[in-house]
């Protein structure tokens, strides 16, 4: 019996871990988020999937910073992600919310670069796979 290839493809996608979680991402970003998910599962046995609410907390939690004073993602990106923000040296940052800025979260290289830089900036360390996924879920829902 010949199984239609489309049927096989659908089954494969459905069986992929975290299918559905990366809704709204393009294929490149979906693959990236699924990779983060695989990593998160390895790192935390209790991991049950990314959570936008945890991402929101990471985004808004201000951390002590000797140079700038308490610093969170929202310090520069503001508390409304649909609006433009401003860097610490005064340069305008176009909105982070994909609903207000279509180019956001469409390019893996850009996304990885800014997650790395900004986690280091705010938290003084790289984000874990779970943290990155959580924050992406939060941003993507804006």
């Amino acid at each position: 019996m010949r199984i239609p290839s489309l049927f096989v493809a659908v089954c494969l996608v459905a069986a992929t871990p975290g299918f559905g979680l990366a809704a709204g991402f393009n294929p490149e970003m979906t693959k990236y988020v699924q990779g983060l998910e695989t990593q998160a599962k390895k790192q935390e046995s209790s991991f049950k999937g990314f959570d936008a609410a945890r991402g929101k907390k990471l985004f808004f939690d201000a951390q002590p910073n000797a140079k700038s004073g308490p610093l969170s993602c929202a310090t520069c990106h503001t508390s409304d992600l649909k609006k433009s923000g401003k860097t610490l040296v005064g340069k305008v940052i176009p909105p982070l919310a994909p609903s207000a800025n279509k180019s956001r979260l469409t390019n893996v290289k850009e996304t990885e670069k800014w997650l790395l830089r900004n986690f280091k900036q705010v938290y003084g360390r790289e984000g874990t796979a779970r943290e990155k996924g959580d924050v992406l879920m939060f941003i993507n829902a804006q």
Partner: protein
Amino acid sequence: MNSLSKMPISALFAVIFSSVVTAHGGGSELMGGATNSAYLKECGACHLAYQPQFLPKRSWEKVMNTLDSHFGDSAALDDALKSEILGYLVKNSADASSSKISRKMLASLGTAETPLKISDTPYFKRKHREVRADVFKRKSIGSPANCTACHLSADKGDYDEHKVKIPRK
């Protein structure tokens, strides 16, 4: 020739004028904006893409080799981007430029000095001696790194002091 004859006289004058200015090696107000697209994108995302003409080659090399802690912030870049941007900065650094600003900048620096900030150079300090420290701290300015706050067309290389507008807050 045909296209020249169709040009309005004013445009023709503009062409002649700009070529005369260029022939003089570029005045301090006509340095132009930074042009390299990787530099504009990667460095210009956070701050003004400062004209490379403001610092000597040795400064740009030091800046680009310490990006992991860039004035306390992480500005890490992959190696390919880093070498492209450094190449551009070096090629257009103060040492390689004939602009008035570059010459004055270099003259103000000792050869052993490798400033990482334009605002640390004696030339910058002299030019801004009338600006009080608290003015730089105003909310819409923040620090001397924010050229555009007062030099509205700094991104185009226009630092003409007659066009300076200092925000009140």
